[in-house]
């Protein structure tokens, strides 16, 4: 017969023997050490550590809390269409989206500000976010901006720059001395901002080109990994803003960017070419503030056709987090630290807005626009 080693264990703890006290204290210390380790890893003991929650707190501190909206790129509209691949990408990546054929796409155009009711003329950066639905349930999400480089290298710099660029409540303008000291500490940002300021604005969403800015890696069937950055290059001819007579400082319509897009789509679909720039071992993949040389090989992989547009609503793009690290096999992250930071931060933004009651979006697409809701 089986039995326990000690046929008469003592389950009485009271009155405790000195030995029992020592044992219980030892056990208590062991349990407390594990709990403390957990709290440390979770950031509870280091309030100064930069976390996704603190970055989103800062967005809220600067822009206010607008329940239900994205904490950045808050004002936007949903789009849908298709991507036609020409097959050129298969040499670089195994992703099914690059095989010759068509992939359905949904997405979102937005202005890069955390205020959902900001007038369009107060914005400087426009964005295109896309979700490619690959066959077999894989997905590729990407968020791109119409600037040539990103102003900062990493999340810490992003966090500090947000505060430096924050408008002073008294003057409504950022305090120039704060920005100056930030730029003195971040010469890469000073350089990037020059390149960003030098770029001409397009008149709208349809004739702007959008860049991944972050580097990624394409991995092909032989396992060869190639550093890349990608762009959606407008097929509509570029027209610089001042040139077309649209005066940025006094628009007649606070939603002119979106209304122009709706009008443009009413006339017919809009196209972009997906172009990848192939990096070499000389090109920094971990620094989105630096452009790669103009001489790098650029390969066109296909054409994006957007033919539908709809107001943000439950179930469409409004419920999608365009996390740049939702990638299919064949596209991998690079060592760019912004990528993990974006993924983490967007997740926190998504979590907060998903829990909140929704307010109707500023951008309302009239029913007359053709096509089904994206």
């Amino acid at each position, binding site marked *: *017969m*089986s*039995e*326990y*080693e*000690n046929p*008469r*264990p*003592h*389950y009485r703890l009271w009155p405790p023997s000195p030995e*029992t006290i020592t*044992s*219980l204290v*030892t*056990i*208590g210390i*062991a*349990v407390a050490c*594990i*709990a403390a*380790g*957990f709290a440390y*890893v*979770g*950031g509870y003991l280091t309030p100064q*550590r930069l*976390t*996704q*929650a603190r*970055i989103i707190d800062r967005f809220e501190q600067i822009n206010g809390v607008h329940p239900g909206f994205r904490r950045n790129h808050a004002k936007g509209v949903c789009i849908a269409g298709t991507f036609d691949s020409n097959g050129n990408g298969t040499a670089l990546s195994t992703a099914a989206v690059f095989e010759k054929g068509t992939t359905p796409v949904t997405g979102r155009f937005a202005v890069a500000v955390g205020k959902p009711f900001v007038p369009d003329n107060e914005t400087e950066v426009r964005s295109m976010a896309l979700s490619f639905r690959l066959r*077999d*349930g*894989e*997905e590729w999400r990407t968020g791109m901006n119409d600037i040539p480089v990103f102003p900062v290298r*990493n*999340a810490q710099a992003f966090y500090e720059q947000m505060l430096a660029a924050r408008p002073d409540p008294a003057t409504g303008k950022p305090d120039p001395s704060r920005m100056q000291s930030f730029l003195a500490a971040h010469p890469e940002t000073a350089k990037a901002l020059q390149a960003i300021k030098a770029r001409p604005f397009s008149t709208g969403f349809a004739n702007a080109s959008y860049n991944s800015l972050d580097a990624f890696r394409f991995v092909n069937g032989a396992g060869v990994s190639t550093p890349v950055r990608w762009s959606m290059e407008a097929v509509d001819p570029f027209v610089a803003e001042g040139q077309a007579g649209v005066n940025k400082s006094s628009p007649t319509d606070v939603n002119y960017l979106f209304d122009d897009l709706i009008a443009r789509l009413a006339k017919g679909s809009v196209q972009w070419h997906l172009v990848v720039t192939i990096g070499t071992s000389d090109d920094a993949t971990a620094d989105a503030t630096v452009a790669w040389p103009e001489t790098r090989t650029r390969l066109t992989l296909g054409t994006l056709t957007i033919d539908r547009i709809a107001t943000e609503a*439950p*179930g469409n793009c409004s*419920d*999608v*987090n365009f*996390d740049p*690290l*939702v990638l*299919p*096999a064949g596209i991998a*992250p690079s060592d760019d*630290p912004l*990528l*993990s*930071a974006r*993924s*983490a*931060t967007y*997740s*926190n933004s*998504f*979590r907060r807005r*998903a*829990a909140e009651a929704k307010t109707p979006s500023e951008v309302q697409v009239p029913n007359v626009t053709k096509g089904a809701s994206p």
Partner: protein
Amino acid sequence: MTHYQFPAFSRVLHWLMAVMILAMLFIGIGMVASVTEYHWLLSIHRPLGIAILVLAAIRLLNRLVRQSPPLPNGMPTTMRFAAHGSHVLLYALMFAVPLVGWAMLSAARYPVVLYGAIHLPPIAPQSDQLYSILRTAHTALALTLFALFLAHFGAALVHRLVFRDGVFESMASLRSGRRER
């Protein structure tokens, strides 16, 4: 005379899962508090969590078909109740935490990627509100699991160092099976 002991397979499962679950709790709490380590930790978190779910199913079946050693005779009723109750809860959470993780990603319409092109189908309809509830539940259940783990760990040591009733040894022994002594 032999000593009460869990079957070797049960012990292997127990210790393997103990390490995996504790690692998952630390990975989970660490990734949501780190911008730089978030992505690679989450890439481990999903497949490891699903592995725990699979092992939990195997373990439950094993538990139902194989005899577990009885608790020692002299053990007070309240202590027996606490032991059984906490074990039932541990089993429930081994299923609930990963299932809720999978369901919440489904509700948020994320692809549930395990590795490369390998991904799981959604197990919940797309819904912001549902995601929000499940996301909160994932945290609450994981923290409950951690608290329960601490209690379980502490109790095991009390059996070993204070009661010396052989309960700790029934799971912690390295002996291959029931052996005469």
